[in-house]
Structures are given as C-alpha cells and as structure tokens.
C-alpha cells in the first residue's frame, strides 16, 4: 500500500523543455489517468516514474521512499508497455518468471504467483506457448500478468488500449476495470483517448504543452474544465467555444451576447469574470434543436451525424460561428435546413482571455 509523490519534475531534451515543473500526489489504490495529446509530456512523465529516463530536476517518491535515484528494477514499479515488450524467445511462464527470478524469489513462490495470475487473466492454458503463437489480446494479458506477479506498489500502463481494435477495446476496458479491483496497488494509465480516461480513472491528470492543466475526477473535469484546452479536449464532440460579450449581470449572474446578436443568460458569477474578450462554452447537450425563431437563435445546418440514440447537428450561426447541437435519435433535420437553437444558459461556461474557465454556480 503506497502513495506516489512527484515533486517539481523538470525534463529537457537538448534545448527543448519537455516537462515543466510537474507536481502531483496520488493515494494508494488510486487509478489515475495521464491524459493529453501527443507531445504533452505524459509518456515522458511515466518513463521518469519507471526509471527509464531521469528527470533533470525534481523528486519521485513512492510510499515515502525516494525512488528517482534507483534503477528501474528496484523501484517496486511494474509497467505494461504499449507494444507489450514480451520476450519472444521465452514461453509465457518464463516471461512472467523472469523478473521474479532476478529478484531471487524462491521457486515455489514464483510458481504460486504465476498460477494465480494465470487464473485471474484466463491464460492458464497458454503458459507454455510463445508470444508469437498468441493473439494481440492474449499477449496483452500476458504483459499484464508479468506485471501482476511482481506485486508492485505501482502499476504503469502505457496506452493499453491503443493497439486493439474497437471490439476488443471495449472488452479490455471492462477487464482493466475489474483487474483494478483485484490488485491492491495504485495504477497510472497514460492515454490520449479521453473516453478511456473518463471511464477507467478515479482521477484524471490532463496534460498539455509540458504542464498539468488540471487534476480532478472525471466529473469535475467534464463539468468544470479549468481552461479552454481541457474543455475542448474532454468530451466528444468537443465543446463549442463562441466569442461573446458581457451585456448585463442580472442578479449577479453574467448575461452575454453572441456574435450573431442572440443573448444567453448564464448562472455564472459576473464579478469573477475578467475584463476583455470572453468565450461562451456550450456542450452539445446544452443546445437543442427547435423550430426556426422558436429558440435563442437561428442557424443553418452544415452536417448531421446520426448516432442512433441521438443526432449531432453541426450548424453555423448567421455570422458564420460554428455551433454543435444535440437532437433526438429520430431527428428529421437535414443539411442546409434552417433551424432554431435553444441554448440552456444554466449549463453554459465562460472562458476569459486567459483561457481560465468559469462555471455556473450551484443552485441554492
């Protein structure tokens, strides 16, 4: 039972800064996702924790013990690589036993752990096969098994679902969630897929441009994105960000006007807003399709995506501003049609010129 601390991690390659003063604290048995686009520094951070790279400055502690000076094998950390990195010339059993043998664990103990992990991961009859004889999904389970038998204090998963096709991905997502309940350790998962992070993690660390943008639970991040980047990165389709100007603050709540003249009343505290250009953030579920003239504003439909349970309507306002709306599954909307859009101001967000997000106050 351990907890991870990252203190002011900094890393550069040559002249390029890759990680800028990153700090984080994790509880034991927590599942944290490092979420971000490629180049955000998330993989580098993972590798620094694993010991495959060294930070230029900062400390890494696990269960109070400082590990950033230790070789990877002594950190009590296990990693599942994106490409699995199974030893091709060894059987599954030998793959899983390798690390334990190096740690001089007695043979009986090794056999016991392997048997148990194989049972949990349902690879018992694969134990004497070589990786080349197995499918991608099976290989991943072996890679996970190799990590489990080490009984580490921290699991590191590098893009575990990227290599899998869609069907396998969903199934593995479920397996990972179940697995997490069985191991008594913390898990860090690196991914660029926000859906993965949202469904699996207790907390998400959103990273961009070498810095942590926000740390929070999936719901916090979804409902209260700290800045415009997080707002657009999390949630699919992305939140609409439309330029808006403050017109009034009735009852302390901001009322803004969009570029086409329509006005939207929000529940955001007006006095917290900075001066300058604002952007109104609207998730598709906050914008519904109505008859022209019957809503907050009118728009022309550019694209329609029928998902079955709902329909996504991509539209343009009179002045050309893009906006995404959500309609029911059997919507009859077509391309080119003029529709009315009803905006739920209570669910709206506002972003200032510094990109910081401001959100609706909870109803009293």
């Amino acid at each position: 039972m351990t907890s991870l601390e990252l203190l002011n991690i900094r890393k550069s390659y040559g002249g390029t800064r890759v990680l800028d003063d990153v700090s984080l604290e994790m509880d034991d048995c927590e599942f944290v996702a490092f979420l971000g686009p490629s180049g955000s520094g998330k993989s580098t951070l993972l590798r620094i924790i694993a010991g495959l790279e060294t930070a230029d400055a900062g400390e890494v502690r696990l269960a109070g013990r400082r590990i950033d000076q230790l070789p990877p094998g002594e950190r009590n950390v296990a990693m599942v690589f994106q490409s699995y990195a199974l030893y091709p010339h060894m059987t599954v059993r030998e793959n899983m036993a390798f690390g334990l043998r190096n740690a001089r664990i007695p043979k009986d103990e090794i056999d016991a752990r392997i048997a148990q992990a194989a049972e949990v991961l349902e690879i018992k009859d694969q134990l004497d096969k070589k990786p080349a004889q197995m499918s991608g999904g099976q290989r991943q389970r072996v890679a996970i098994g190799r990590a489990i038998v080490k009984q580490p204090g921290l699991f590191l998963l590098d893009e575990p679902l990227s290599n899998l096709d869609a069907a396998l991905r969903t199934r593995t997502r479920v397996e990972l969630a179940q697995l997490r309940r069985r191991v008594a350790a913390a898990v860090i998962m690196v991914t660029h897929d926000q859906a993965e992070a949202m469904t699996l993690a207790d907390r998400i660390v959103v990273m961009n441009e070498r810095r942590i943008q926000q740390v929070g639970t999936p719901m916090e991040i979804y409902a209260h994105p700290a800045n415009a980047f997080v707002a657009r990165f999390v949630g699919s389709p992305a939140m609409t960000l439309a330029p808006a100007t403050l017109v009034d603050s009735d009852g302390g709540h901001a009322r803004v006007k969009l570029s086409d003249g329509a006005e939207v009343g929000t529940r955001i505290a007006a006095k917290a807003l900075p001066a300058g250009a604002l952007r109104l953030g609207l998730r598709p579920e906050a914008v519904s399709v109505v008859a022209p003239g019957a809503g907050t504003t009118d728009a022309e439909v550019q694209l329609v995506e029928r998902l079955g349970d709902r329909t996504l309507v991509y539209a343009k306002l009179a002045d050309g501003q893009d906006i995404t709306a959500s309609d029911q599954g059997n919507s009859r909307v077509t391309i080119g049609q003029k529709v009315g859009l009803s905006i739920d101001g209570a669910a709206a967000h506002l972003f200032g010129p510094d990109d910081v997000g401001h959100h609706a106050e909870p109803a009293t």
Partner: protein
Amino acid sequence: MSVGPQRDRLGVPALIGVTIGAAIMVTPLIWTLLLSFKSNAELMRSSAAAFSGPYTLENYHAILVGSQIGRWLLNSLIVSLGTTAGVLILSSLAGYGFARLDFPFRRTLFVLVLLGLAIPEQAVILPRHQFFAVLHLHNSYPGLILPGLVAPFAVFFMTQYFRAIPVELDEAAMLDGASRLTLFWKVLLPLTLPAQATLGVFTFLGSWNDYWWPLISATTSDRFTLTVGLASAQMNYAQTSGLGFLMAQAVFASIPILIVYIVFQKQIVRAMAGAAMR
C-alpha cells in the same frame, strides 16, 4: 530474357543457356572426380584413360593411410572452428556495445571499425608477418587464428542486428530487475541466433579457404591447413607424378566444404543478401 520474378517456365533460349552454363560449371568437377578414380600408372600414359574404366579406389586408400592430408584436415578444423567461435563471441559483445550502450567516443570508434572494411589484405599482411615473427607466433594455432578474429564486417553485421531489436525489450528487462549482463545473455543474445548462424558459416568458409596468411605463417608441413597443404602437393606434383593421387586429394579437400555448403546453404545465401543490403 526474363524481366522480373516469374512464376512461369523459363523461355527456351534462356533454358538452353542456363543448361549449357551449368554443364560448364559441372564438367571440371566431374573431370576431377574421374581422374581421382584412376590409378596413377594408367594416367601416366595418358590422362584420357579417365574416360573409361577400370576405376579404382587406390588413391583414396593412399590418402587415408599415408598422406598428411588427415593432419591438414585437423589443422583446418581447429583453425576454422577457433576463428569462428572467436569471431562470434567478440563481434556479439562489440555489436551489443555499439548498438545499446552509450560510452564516450562510441560513434568515432564505430566509424574507425567501418574504415577497416576498406583495408585490403596486402596492406597489412607483410608487416603483420614481421610483427608476429617478433612475437614468435608463427607456425602455431594462435598465429593462424588471431588475424581472422579481426573482422570489421562481423562487428558491423552484429551491430545492425542488435540495433534492430526493439528497445522496449531492454526496458522491460530493466524493470524486471535484470543487470546489464543478464540482459545481454538471457534476453538479447538468444534473439540473435539467426544472425549468429549466418555469420558463423560465413566466417567458417572464409577461414577454411584462406590462402595467403596460412601460406606464409605455417612453415612446417605438419601445421599446414588443408588449403595450403594442397598447394604444396600441387607444387610437388612434378616430382611425384601421381595425377590420380593429386586429384583424389583435391576431391578429399572439397568434401568438408561441400558438406558445409549443402547443410548451411540457407545461411550462406542470407549472408550474401545481407552484404547486398549495405
């Protein structure tokens, strides 16, 4: 003329050409074989006797009983196997070092090794001969094996092969607590077995057929390798006039290398293809 990988049959002119060519390739070998099965006395009168019987095994008998060819064969085996083992060990270690480890001057040293590929034998063989004479290394197994261990191509080959192994395997092994040596010995080296086989056969062949160095380094006939011994037999032919015996020696000397060729044909072809990739 065929112009690409064809799955159909050869055109007739090409087929004729290739068959004639193959006949030309094989005829000298058959001629030699025929000669080896004739008695020396008959051949003294006319070597055309080879075209008709009687054929005899007396030359081969003489080889197995009397000549030094057995000794030469043993020397060749020791030298070639020793060279091959040495090259495989040294070039695997060096290849791993160049491919995976970072140390000062690594790139410079690697280029230095590559430059060795351009150095022809005659630029070093005379001074090496003198150098070895000072060290009293001539006419000995070490003297015959050591020069063969200096194989820049082998190091280049193994380095490229190690480089092709994904680095994630190293990283996984490090997380598994493996030391550098364990990583090399238990994880990476086993993955290079195909390359070892190819390089091994290639080195063995080259060492077995080496002529110039053993010629000047082995001075007494009991240290001759097969290749050199056969040359001395050829030069003594005028005195012995045993044509059949001479040819039997040639056939005898060919057998080991032809066996290696047939058994390891795949590796040899792969080594050639590997050289083409340079």
